[in-house]
């Protein structure tokens, strides 16, 4: 067996105000896998994401990225290895132009000149956004901004890309375009979502999270077909959607 790209072991966390959000969450993801993390609102998915690159620290348990534990001494390397695409692209894109935003990550790791330029060009080409490189992010549509947000983490050449609700608020065309881009990237991926058809389309494997624990792990189609499991976790398929006919 290869070293997992991401290993989460017995993770627990509560916010300073006492809300207990993660309870003994465990799972691992192997290189090259695309995994969906499903769960209702408030399940603790975003809180989990913040643990994956050390923005939050676990009270108990551990996170390991390609063999490297998330610890103070490794933070810079961990943050290069784990690329997080935040839910709201306006949080992620903070530089005056798209090009500068994509360059921000690699520049923090000392890249400059032609090498930096190549990284930026490659990342923007991978998401089909090279043509907006010199525009300010707030002039772009939400779909474009989300694609640029993906480019900002691709430019860091991460081991794993973590996306927090990538399809939220997108119109059907942008949603489909983003799916095509994400499947074209040959990269390990953890996709947090409650867009179940999207999970089925993009991720062969799914995890179900509720009340801070991982309570199911298996092929996405099987998970979505398990009516009792779905109902118990407030996961609902769109009307008339049959996971067995969809793919």
């Amino acid at each position, binding site marked *: 067996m290869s070293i997992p790209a991401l290993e989460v072991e017995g993770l627990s966390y509560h916010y300073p105000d006492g809300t207990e959000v993660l309870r003994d969450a465990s799972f691992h993801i192997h290189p090259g896998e695309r995994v969906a993390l499903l769960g209702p609102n408030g399940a603790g998915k975003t809180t989990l994401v913040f643990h994956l690159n050390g923005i939050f620290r676990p009270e108990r348990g551990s996170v390991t990225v390609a063999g490297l534990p998330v610890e103070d001494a490794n933070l810079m390397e961990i943050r290069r290895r784990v690329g997080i695409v935040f839910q709201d692209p*306006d949080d992620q894109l903070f530089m005056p132009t798209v090009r500068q935003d994509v360059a921000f990550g690699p520049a923090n790791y000392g890249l400059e000149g032609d090498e930096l330029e190549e990284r930026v060009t490659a990342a923007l080409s991978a998401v089909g956004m090279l043509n907006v490189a010199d525009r300010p992010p707030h002039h772009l549509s939400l779909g474009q901004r989300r694609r640029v947000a993906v480019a900002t983490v691709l430019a860091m050449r991460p081991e794993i890309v973590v996306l927090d609700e990538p399809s939220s608020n997108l119109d059907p065309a942008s949603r489909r375009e983003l799916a095509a881009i994400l499947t074209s990237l040959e990269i390990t991926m953890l996709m947090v979502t409650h867009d179940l058809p999207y999970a089925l389309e993009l991720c062969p494997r799914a995890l179900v999270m509720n009340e801070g624990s991982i309570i199911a792990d298996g092929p996405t189609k099987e998970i979505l077909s398990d009516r009792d499991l779905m109902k118990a976790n407030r996961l609902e398929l769109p009307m008339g959607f049959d996971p067995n006919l969809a793919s």
Partner: protein
Amino acid sequence: MAGTHTHALFVHGDSELHRLPASPKLGALGLFVLAVVLTPREAIGAFGVHAGLVLLGAWIAGLKPMFMARRLLIEIPFVLFAIFLPFVGGGERIEVVGLSLSIEGLWGGWNIVAKATLGLAASVVLTATTTVPDILSGLDRLRVPRLITSIAGFMVRYLDVIAGEMHRMRMAMLSRGHNPRWIWQLKAYTASAGALFIRSYERGERVYYAMTARGFTGRIPTFDEKARPADWARALSLPAIAWFAAGWGVVAG
């Protein structure tokens, strides 16, 4: 709503001035304005030279006179009081078409209007040929503290986002029957200002997380091209002439 303000001042073009890096342009603007300010008000000829330089800059940048005139309109409220100086000023007076005007006041008014107009016109040429991101990195190159340029950059970047949030909150209030027509109904606005502050604060926290997630350790990298000595030489040739004119004005006066 989705704003256009970052490019609101910029005019697309491919002139010599557009291509010049921002830092020498900013340096030239600063030195030009200083020369204008130091020019004695009686040195009318020197003001003529300054005006000629601004027009030359506008011509190089391909800016039309009507465009310059429209941009200069914003100056009016700021120089209005200068118009009153000739009426209220003391000392010797002269009669102009039946009005008694103070000579000291006339000079004072002229001094303010001429200098403000020249300074603003020069700034118009700069902002029309330089994008806001370039101005910010240019200031950075001129060793303006990174904290200031970063704050200015975030302000430009998030003005729209926060204005959008404010707009949505207002719409939410209106659609729940709030109809602010009377001063005492402003209470709802002060409450929403509080909510807006919290939201902006939370936004700031999330942006900070997003920055650390990509390896931010307190220093924002800069990316613009570094200006060459030749760029500086070309940019500074204009204010150099202004300094000669101002110096000649001082000596002659």
